[in-house]
């Protein structure tokens, strides 16, 4: 928009030309250094012999092969796969269901929406603390069911190595479903009513109208929801630390907790860096095409 100043242009005009860039530059420099510079540094470290301290000698892919032969890393990958899949599918299905139900001219819709969405305002640490207590095998839900007369009720997933990851899924779904619901609700409200009316006049049953007309039109919302959830899932760290601490044993380790423990308690910087680079690569493969399509669409 701004034209380059003519050679005759006064100092003021030159200033007006450069000022916008000058104002933007501190942020840009910060981002270049703290984001892209750091990405390069971490990537380099993943090919170095760094242990407790950075050591810049190039060791090729040694850290990477140590990462991939690590038993815990295998568990972490398996867990993030299980967790991510269940989390994304459950949040999407429940969110869509709640949005459709709320979209039936419900009285007190505003109040219900507020209730469904409030967990999103909480810190994962608070959520984890609450659910750890709620699902506490000795005193929580189990005990409450017993005292209500359901003596055989048993729920000890939190301390069961095979089931603990599912308790994290429950808490995570509880936290994010309201948000996904809000996204779908906004999508539903933006759908063109003409086709629906026509289908209604033709006497199509409600479930068919949803299945054939409405839900297919929500495709962009599905895409956004899945990207957001996948992104939240890969970053999941706080919730796991607060709920299970990655345990029992390593049972609920995920890449984020793996990276943290190798970086700060095991002093294996090289492996930690390799795991972080892997996480970035997965997210970038997901986010870059998404951002690209989001950013260029309005131009067409």
């Amino acid at each position, binding site marked *: 928009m701004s034209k380059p100043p003519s050679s005759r242009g006064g100092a003021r005009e030159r200033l007006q030309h450069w000022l916008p860039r000058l*104002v933007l530059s501190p942020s840009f420099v910060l981002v270049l250094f703290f984001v892209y510079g750091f990405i390069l540094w971490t990537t380099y470290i993943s090919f170095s012999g760094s242990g407790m301290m950075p050591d810049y000698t190039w060791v090729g892919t040694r850290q990477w092969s140590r990462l991939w032969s690590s038993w815990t890393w295998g568990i972490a990958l398996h867990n993030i796969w299980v967790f991510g899949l269940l989390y994304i599918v459950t949040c999407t299905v429940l969110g869509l269901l709640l949005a459709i139900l709320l979209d039936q001219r419900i009285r007190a819709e505003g109040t219900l929406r507020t209730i469904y969405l*409030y967990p999103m305002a909480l810190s994962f640490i608070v959520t984890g603390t609450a659910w750890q207590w*709620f699902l506490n095998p000795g*005193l*929580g839900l189990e005990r409450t069911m017993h005292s209500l007369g359901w003596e055989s009720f048993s729920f000890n997933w939190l301390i069961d190595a095979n089931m603990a990851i599912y308790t994290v899924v429950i808490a995570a779904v509880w936290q994010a479903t309201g948000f996904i619901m809000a*996204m779908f609700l906004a999508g539903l409200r933006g759908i063109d009513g003409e086709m629906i009316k026509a289908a209604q006049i033709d006497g199509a049953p409600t479930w068919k109208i949803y299945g054939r007309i409405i839900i297919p039109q929500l495709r962009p919302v599905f895409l956004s929801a899945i990207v957001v959830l996948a992104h939240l899932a890969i970053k999941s760290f706080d919730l796991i630390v607060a709920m299970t601490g990655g345990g029992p044993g390593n049972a609920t380790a995920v890449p984020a907790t793996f990276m943290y423990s190798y970086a700060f308690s095991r002093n294996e910087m090289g492996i930690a860096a390799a795991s972080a680079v892997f996480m970035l690569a997965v997210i*970038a493969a997901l986010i870059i095409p998404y951002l690209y399509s989001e*950013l260029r669409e309005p131009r067409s």
Partner: protein
Amino acid sequence: MSAGSLVARRNTLARALLYAVLLTFAVIYLMPLYVMLVTSFKPLEEIHQGNMLALPQDWTFAPWREAWGSACIGLECSGVHGYFFNSIKIVVPAVLISGLLGAFNGYVLTKWRFRGHKIVFGLILFSCFIPFQIILLPMARVLGILHIANSTTGLVLVHIVYGIGFTTLFFRNFYASFPDELVRAAKLDGAGFFTIFFRILLPASIPIIVVTIIWQFTNVWNDFLFGVSFTSGDSAPITVALNNLVNSSTGVKAYNVNMAAAMVAAVPTLIVYILAGKYFLRGLMSGSVKG
């Protein structure tokens, strides 16, 4: 028009079922908060005997007093209040500075475009989505070199740097729909870069300022990863203190104190959500979908 009301209003049974399902979900959603609250007002004996869902028989504020002022976190037995104030010390400057930078960036990227503005925006935007694990190791080194490791100042810097992406996104999307004609007319009248920003755009930006402040406030307040990676002991934020309190396994677990501390950590963001839920949602949405 909305797709709404496809479930016929005449069909009373279906409507009743609909409300039943919605209310059940509402109860499930409120349950953990309810349990946290009632637990925080019960004496410990009552917790050990009874039912998690029951209201306290003996209401007591002692767990809240202890959580705030005397619970032991690590070796320090003075509750979470110090950490609460740490979080405030971090949140206020981090939100204001990253918000201001984002506002300027959004302004430049929409009203003073230059060659390559799209690439610049793309590079800034991508920083919203990186898994922060990728920057933990170098950031720890840089904070050490700058002598602000293990301090709230260090965390302020971290939150500013990684907040710029979202604040820029918010303001850019908002200013993109601000009429260019007004800006062009002001330029013709000889108004400069800052005059246009402060006199024309900023007064019209209240909604997006609210969205940005709420978004940044919630994010920074709720942060745990940066807090636990870059601070320890006295300079930790509330989330780290809460986690240390709850998950340090020494002695008898005081569940009521834990829940009171969790409520202390939750109250600021809950208040913001209740007072300004609309703006909170708008922030969430623009973080995920284009504005």
